[in-house]
C-alpha cells in the first residue's frame, strides 16, 4: 500500500493570492470546511455542518511557498496524517502540490476497518458535494 496521496493543480493567479486562499481561515472555511474556520496560534479549527470539527496543527509556514499541518480527520482516533502544500511560480500562474502522507502508520484497527467497510462514507460524500457546488458557483 502507498503511504501518501499526491495531487497538484495549476492555477492562473499570482502566488501571493493562492497562498492566501490555501492558508487563511476565512478561505479555508469555504474550500475545505463548510461552516467556517478559526485560528488560534498554530492550530486551525475547521468546522463542517454535517460532521463536526477537526483541528489542524500547523507544522510549517513559509509564505508564499510551504504550508503543512497534521490532522486526524480522515479516520478519527486512528492517528494523524501530514498534509504538505508546496506553491511554486510557473509561467501563467501558480502550481499547487499537495502531499498527504503517514497512512502506513495509522493504527486504530476498529476505526479504520469501520471506515473501510462503510465503503461510501456519508459525511465525505456531503463534503465533496458541497465543494463541487461551491466550486461551480465561484467559477462562473
Amino acid at each position, binding site marked *: 500500500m502507498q503511504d501518501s496521496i499526491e495531487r*497538484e493543480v495549476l492555477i492562473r493567479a499570482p502566488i501571493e493570492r493562492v497562498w492566501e486562499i490555501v492558508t487563511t481561515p476565512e478561505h479555508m472555511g469555504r474550500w475545505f470546511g463548510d461552516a467556517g474556520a478559526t485560528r488560534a496560534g498554530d492550530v486551525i479549527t475547521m468546522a463542517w455542518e454535517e460532521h463536526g470539527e477537526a483541528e489542524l496543527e500547523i507544522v510549517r509556514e513559509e509564505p508564499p511557498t510551504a504550508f503543512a499541518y497534521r490532522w486526524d480527520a480522515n479516520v478519527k482516533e486512528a492517528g494523524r496524517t501530514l498534509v504538505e502544500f508546496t506553491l511554486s511560480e510557473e509561467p501563467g500562474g501558480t502550481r499547487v502540490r499537495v502531499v498527504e502522507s503517514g497512512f502506513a*502508520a495509522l493504527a486504530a484497527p476498529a476505526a479504520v476497518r469501520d471506515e473501510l467497510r462503510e465503503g461510501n462514507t456519508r459525511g465525505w460524500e456531503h463534503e465533496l458535494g458541497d465543494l463541487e457546488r461551491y466550486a*461551480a458557483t465561484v467559477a462562473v
Partner: protein
Amino acid sequence: MTEDVFTALADPTRRRVLDLLAEHGYGTATSLAAELPVSRPAVIKHLAVLDRAGLVSARRHGREVRYVVRPEPLAETAAWMARLAAQWDARLDAIRALAEQD
C-alpha cells in the same frame, strides 16, 4: 487480537513478502526466506502479522504450509485511498476556482 492492515503494511519486508506471494502465486516460509534478506523464523513472524491482518491465508499442503495473498483488504484500502485522493482533487479545484475568480 486482530492486526491492523495499515500496521501490517508499514513494514517494507512484509510488503516484499506480499509482492513475492503475488508474483509466485503462493510461497512457504522456506521459499520466502530464500528470496529475502531475513531468516526463516523472521519470515514466519511477518507471515503471522499478515495473517492476522487478513492479508494472507495459510493452507497445509502435505508437509509444508503454503501462503497465498488475500486481495480483499488491499482492494478496500486502495479504494479508501482513492476516495481521499478524489477529495483532494475537489479541494484543489475549489482553491483554483476561488483564486481565479474576479
